[in-house]
């Protein structure tokens, strides 16, 4: 699909494994991911250091600014860590997302004086950008002038000389001048991280901060990472345990996971995101571009709070896949009827090569299966689609609508793509 945020714990594991296999580079780090399944009292049996080392604890759920939010516990003993977890095991609101804290990362507490900032980002089409600052920490955004930027065009190696210059760029504003020995270590660190970034298909990697411990080894304290999930076929082993959790506050529904699974198995594209399961506008849309335009149009007409789902199918799915996809949506939308009924939009542009008849046969099979619930739930259906064999597809769905006695408005490619949205919104009143 695209850039995916991963847990700090997973990012650090990827880095640790990579370094232990490919580089002779000291980078110590221990960490434990606490999940709702973790048995906290028995954890020290496996990890005795929990009882002998001062600890840090923080939520590991893809959101940042944890320090500013007061969600990091530092220099705690294991008893205090358990208390921290039980105190924070509640619903909180960050920005406009509300959710429960469920995953925490426990690490040894590292006494440190300096905080450095390093980020690598695939934020350019022509290469990657590296960002470094001697003044890392929670205020880095406010102190952006202290950050040096190095653009590396695709294919350019990161030579030692180049890193040296990079480190000199903002040396003048450094809070603390570092020793040559430390500098050498940082140079190797940056080079290693860049190689790793490319080889493991990260798209964003940020250490804010990293520091030196008392043994003068580099320690990564906080990490934010994203990977390119298209590259998963390149890393069957390295990424074996990697998961892609949902954004904080975004509830993950089993139906979404089911469609994600279907998408993985299929040569076609099948996507589903539930936005508001109580919404009255449900969508079975085709095409990455057209599906967005449908949602835009609903929102333009002021009904965004009623949009129940986003999704799209494309790339010529089979009848069976189309059936499973439609069925999943119909099942969700008919669970709790609304006294004024609901709207189902089966929309799309004029397909290039998706066989409209084939996909519609799947959708119609699902409609027939749910016809009773659709009638009970006073559901009106609005259809618009074009492309290969659309004439037959529209005939079939019209006939099915009549047989099932479900109100249906059907438009051919002769009418504008989003005309049915207006008609659907009228019905919603």
């Amino acid at each position, binding site marked *: *699909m*695209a*850039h995916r945020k991963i847990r700090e714990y997973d990012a650090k594991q990827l880095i640790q494994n990579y370094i232990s296999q490919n580089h002779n580079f000291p980078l110590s780090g221990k960490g434990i991911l606490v999940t709702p399944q973790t048995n906290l009292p028995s954890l020290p049996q496996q990890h005795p250091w929990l009882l002998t080392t001062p600890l840090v604890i923080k939520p590991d759920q893809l959101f940042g600014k944890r320090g500013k939010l007061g969600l990091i516990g530092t220099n705690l003993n294991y008893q205090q860590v358990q208390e921290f977890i039980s105190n924070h095991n509640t619903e909180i609101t960050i920005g*406009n*997302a509300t959710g429960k804290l469920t995953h925490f990362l426990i690490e040894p507490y590292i006494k440190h004086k300096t905080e450095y900032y390093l980020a690598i980002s*695939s934020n350019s*089409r*022509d*290469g990657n950008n590296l960002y470094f600052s001697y003044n890392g920490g929670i205020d880095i955004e406010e102190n952006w002038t202290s950050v040096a930027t190095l653009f590396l*065009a*695709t*294919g350019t190696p990161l030579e030692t000389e180049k890193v040296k210059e990079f480190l000199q760029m903002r040396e003048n504003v450094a809070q603390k001048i570092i020793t040559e020995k430390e500098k050498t270590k940082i140079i190797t660190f940056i080079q290693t991280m860049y190689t790793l970034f*490319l080889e493991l*298909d990260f*798209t964003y990697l940020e250490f804010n901060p990293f520091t030196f411990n008392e043994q003068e080894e580099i320690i990564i304290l906080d990490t934010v990472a994203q990977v*390119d999930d*298209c*590259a998963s*076929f*390149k890393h069957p082993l390295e990424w074996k345990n990697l998961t892609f959790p949902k*954004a*904080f*506050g975004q509830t993950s529904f089993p139906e979404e996971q089911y469609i994600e699974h279907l998408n993985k198995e299929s040569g076609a*594209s099948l*996507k589903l*995101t539930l*936005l508001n399961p109580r919404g009255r506008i449900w969508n079975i849309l085709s*095409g*990455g*571009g*057209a*599906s*967005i*335009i449908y*949602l*835009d*149009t*609903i*929102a*333009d007409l002021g009904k*965004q709070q009623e*949009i129940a789902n*986003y999704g*799209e199918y*494309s*790339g010529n799915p089979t009848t069976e896949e189309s059936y499973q996809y439609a069925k999943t949506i119909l099942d969700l939308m008919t669970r709790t009827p609304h006294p004024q009924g609901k709207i189902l939009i089966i929309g799309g*542009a*004029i*397909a*290039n*090569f998706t066989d409209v008849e084939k996909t519609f046969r799947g959708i119609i099979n699902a409609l027939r299966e749910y016809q009773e619930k659709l009638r009970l739930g006073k559901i009106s259906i609005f259809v618009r689609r*074009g*492309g*290969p*064999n659309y004439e*037959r597809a529209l005939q079939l769905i019209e006939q099915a609508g009549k047989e099932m006695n479900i109100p249906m408005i059907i438009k051919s*490619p002769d009418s*504008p*793509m*989003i005309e049915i949205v207006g008609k659907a919104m009228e019905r919603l009143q």
Partner: protein
Amino acid sequence: MNFTRNTTAIFYNLKALPIQQMLDFDYMCNRTPSVVAIIHPGRSGFHKAFFGQQEICIPLYQSLTDATHNHPKAEVLINFASYRSAFSSSKQALASPSLKTIVIVAEGIPEQQTKQLIALAKQDPQHPKLLIGPSTVGGIAAGSFRIAGYAGGKIENVLRAKLYQPGSIGLVSKSGGMMNELFNMISRTTDGIKEGIAIGGDLYPGSTLLDHLLRFQADPDISMLVTLGELGGTQEYDIIDAKNAGKITKPLVMWVPGTCASLFPWEIQFGHAGAKAGKTQESAKAKNQALRDAGIIVPENFQKLENILQQTFKKIVDTEKKDTGKNMHNTDISKKTTATPKPVPLDYIDALNAGIIRKPTNFTTTISSDIGEEPTYNQFPISQLIEQNSSIGDIIALLWFKKPLSTPITKFIELAIIICADHGPAVSGAHNAIVTARAGKDIISSLCAGLLTIGPRFGGAIDDAARYFKQAKDTNTPAEQFVEQMKQQNILIPGIGHRIKSKRNPDKRVELLKQYAKIHFASTHYLNYALNVEKITLEKAENLILNVDGCIAVCFLDAITSSNQFTPEEISQIISIGYLNALFALSRSIGFIGHILDQKRLNAELYRHPTDDILYLLDEKEKK
């Protein structure tokens, strides 16, 4: 790089549909075929495709080097390799001097790989190459060249949007699925498309919206630019920079979908990989506003796009009329010379589905089907037969007799199969199978050698026995008279007589068959009749007993006549077309295969018959 009526392409991977759609477009536009070669590792020879009603052969090559060597004029590679392998083949294509444009269709290529391809494409600043995609449906240069065969959809849609003749609009879109919608909209509101490109939904496409806008700006035949962007990424800001720098002067109508995204509590990953706005600047709302501020024509929303296209185009036409008094861009729809598209013949399957044509069939079947979800044996899905524990006899009933038969009959069929399965290696059929196997022939040839031996003198007696006994019994011929008649005609009664077995040394198999028939069949008229015949023949010789063949024949007659499942006509047909011979062939195949496998296991050497076992009866003069 411009696409002209002379542009030709090489396909990577044999994709019959897009190849055909490109050729149909070529035919429609009255140009020569644009697909000249196909690279398909592991295959060679030719791919047949239609050009109009004629079939043409497009050569297949194992490697890109072979293809480009033989087709140095082809400048476009349409890469249909999968997301796993598209990188290596595209990289190779970028290094090939004759290929100028690489179109990558695969969706899901890792970002770092795409970025490497982008860097390679501009490695030689003097001769930069054009990458389109990944994740693209291609595009169309109206009247000239169809890029990758998908954009534009089916030929009816190409016709509807008048893509067979060039207009003066340059279109570039992130979305491929919206291309046909835009083609139609543009054909309704302007003089039509000159060129339309879908760049693909990835965050970092091989060529950007701006790359194509700059190509269109440089094309003197293009009067107006149309762009459909998307939320996510910063490509649209590059367009603004170009506009501000005076690099884009032609009127540009543009819309960025995804305005709804900010209304949701978290970032949505939309269908396209690039369609996610991380920062406010990347949101559709911000982009549309910034574009508007830069003097680009942006409608209020997508619904208003068609209107604004019409107005903008009208303004261009009016201005040109006023400024020069003549039509510079050939943009006046009414005065524009229109090309006549050559009608593309309908594909047989499409015409059939549309109910326009019909065709008599050459074959008829009444016993089974492989159409539909699961193969059926006479309307019974195979899974159902397995679930209800059907036996081989039940399957023979469905496929041979075309109906389920009662257990007494199916069980009898199985009995017959068991009894006839083998008769040792010495009988002529088994012997021939063995000799053939020992000559090193395969299983099927050896089996056929055995089966071909079955006939009137070997194994064919069952059928004949059934015919004679049925005829005699049905005409109420007394047994004595039947035996007498046969003697007069000098015919040995089929099913009577055995080499070893006799009245005092009865055949156990026959005893079991008789017993089975007496217990399970409603009547045994034919068996009784045959036994009457046997009584008479036994008076003539000890060994003229009712043998296994004869017993199977008459019991089979009793089974089907007493079951009430067949009409007399059906029974006559069963006997006359050779069901019993078929039963023997089926059963004995088991034995033949056993002997063949046995010989192969033993690695038995070639058999040569000893000459001392042959009487060489030759003419005297041939002797030395």
